[in-house]
């Protein structure tokens, strides 16, 4: 299971292994690592092998984030509010993979309903970083990132509302890709903030990400925001030719002089990023430094919280414990729902719902919600202006390697830096965005991100493929370093 999808497919084709062998190995690894890293809500011990076909995913195991609906398989959103929920249908993206002969072997832990960035708020406990269990995986696609990094299988599904695929990928030393908004149907994905939610995948190399999304994508009558992408074949469009491509990075985020008292990890992370840019220039890529107004970047984290909380408040209103979820106690329906929601939601979710509710009040909408939406437009327009000249924006992910679990507080604090949150712009604009590993800081993996214009996924993946091949971190498996 340490191999790429194409290598596994070729091994199946040659008869060197069977689908049954791969499933057995994936299940054994799932049980082995779960005790230590807590990556899974459910391990599907009765997973059945499938026949080998021309589809590269046939017969190969994969993981599913536990906010994708899976027919007859527990789907909790990592929340006590849905701890026993068993859907009677598959999410469209899951169904497409099943139709291709892919074999799900587990459901992975997330931050409750995808509303966190630490991997610490799922109802089954904290997901630990496979390189250093004292550090976080980031989230919300925490279990998926952990399992792919440990070689349980070549890929796992993720979802991304702010950076929930792309930051865990960086912290775990793997690839995380969310395509253009609507390329993959969201039908059957538990909604968090509908205008920001994206489906996507975590893999160990760029080609695998292209292969999986080629199968997941497509217009869906059940998701009116999905669009027809039948003329796009990501895998076949990747050729590694990048001479003449143009990238830019943001001065306000990447210049160490912008940071008062930078940590050693931040210094190493940014220096590593700048060193890698020099390598990429040798491929014939032009890379410029550009500027974005700092007041817009500073507003970014709060804009994200305002919009996502407001949308979440609406989306989670159907969680009552009446139709599904554990029934609350009370002498009437109102008391029963209150008991269900009070016991079922973690403090983080409650906080976000209350803030979202306040922001949506008629008297507050202009100051908070609409101004947040206005800044969203200004940021998206600024990025689209860059895309008139550049193929993509390239930036470091976060302020260094994975953060320590004992210092984690998934709460917006005054020192939250735009550097930690800039990936949210990819959600604001629906831009295709991919994280790849770009080195090590303090023996822990760090990543960079490439984000391009809407519908330009093939170009973005091709650039990522070329950069990945110019470095030495492709297909790496996590090794505990401390």
């Amino acid at each position, binding site marked *: 299971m340490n191999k790429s999808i194409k290598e596994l497919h070729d091994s199946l084709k040659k008869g060197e292994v069977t689908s049954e062998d791969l499933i057995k190995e994936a299940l054994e690894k799932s049980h082995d690592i779960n005790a230590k890293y807590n990556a899974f809500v459910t391990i599907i011990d009765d997973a059945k092998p499938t026949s080998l076909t021309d589809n590269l995913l046939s017969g190969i195991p994969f993981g599913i984030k536990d906010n994708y609906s899976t027919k007859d398989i527990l789907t909790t959103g990592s929340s006590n509010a849905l701890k*026993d*929920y*068993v859907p*009677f249908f598959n999410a469209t993206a899951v169904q497409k993979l099943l139709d291709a002969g892919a074999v799900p072997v587990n459901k992975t832990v997330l931050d409750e309903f995808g509303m966190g960035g630490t991997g610490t708020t799922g109802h089954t406990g904290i997901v630990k970083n496979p390189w250093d269990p004292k550090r976080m995986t980031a989230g919300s696609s925490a279990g998926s990132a952990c399992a792919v990094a440990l070689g349980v299988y070549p890929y796992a599904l993720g979802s991304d509302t702010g950076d929930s695929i792309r930051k865990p990928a960086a912290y775990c030393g793997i690839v995380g890709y969310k395509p253009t*908004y*609507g390329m993959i149907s969201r039908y059957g994905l538990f909604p968090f903030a509908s*205008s920001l939610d994206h489906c996507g995948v975590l893999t160990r190399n760029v080609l695998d990400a292209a292969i999986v999304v080629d199968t997941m994508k497509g217009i869906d009558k059940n998701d*009116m*925001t999905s*669009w027809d992408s039948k003329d796009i074949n990501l895998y076949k469009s990747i050729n590694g030719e990048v001479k003449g491509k143009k990238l830019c990075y943001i001065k306000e985020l990447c210049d160490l002089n912008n940071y008062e008292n930078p940590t050693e990890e931040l210094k190493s992370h940014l220096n590593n990023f700048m060193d890698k840019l020099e390598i990429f220039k040798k491929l014939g890529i032009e890379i410029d430094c550009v500027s974005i107004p700092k*007041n*817009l970047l*500073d*507003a970014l*984290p*709060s*804009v994200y*919280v*305002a919009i996502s909380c407001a949308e979440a*408040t609406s989306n989670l209103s159907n969680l009552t*414990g*009446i*139709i*599904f979820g554990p*029934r609350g106690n009370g*002498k*009437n*329906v*109102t008391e*029963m*729902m*209150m008991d269900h*929601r*009070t016991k079922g939601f973690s*403090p983080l979710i*409650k*906080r976000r*719902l*209350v*803030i979202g*509710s*306040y922001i949506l009040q008629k008297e507050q909408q202009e*100051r908070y*919600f*609409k*101004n*947040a*939406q*206005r*800044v*969203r*437009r*200004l940021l*998206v327009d600024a990025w689209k202006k860059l895309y008139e000249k550049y193929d993509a924006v390239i930036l470091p992910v976060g302020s260094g390697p994975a953060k320590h679990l004992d210092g984690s507080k998934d*709460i*917006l604090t*005054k020192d939250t830096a735009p550097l930690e949150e800039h990936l949210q712009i990819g*959600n604001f604009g*629906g831009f295709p965005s991919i994280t790849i590993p770009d080195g090590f800081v303090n023996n822990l993996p760090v990543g960079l991100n490439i984000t391009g214009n*809407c519908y330009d996924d093939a170009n973005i993946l091709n650039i990522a493929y070329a950069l990945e091949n110019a470095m030495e971190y492709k297909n790496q498996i996590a090794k505990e370093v401390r």
Partner: protein
Amino acid sequence: MNNKFTKELVDDLASKLLIGLSFEENKMVLDEFAIIDENLSKVENIPNIETIEPMTHTLDDFIFTLREDEATSSIDIKDALRNSDATEGREIEVPIVVGGDN
């Protein structure tokens, strides 16, 4: 900090959302909102911010079309009921609502 956002208002909003908050949870809401309020206050200083059209949809070139009004199969009643903790026959069971203690 917007002085209208008080502990009492937080409890009132939580109550309307059918959520109970502990004292600590209430304080966390107030602390986090203070930062949001401070940051979004700076947004108001952006020249002509009020003239910017709020961005509500992700893809601004997306064409939304209404589907044909066609009948489709509905879900099986057993499927609809299987995740509820209290059912009776073909229905979900709840305490009396009309004329009840609500």
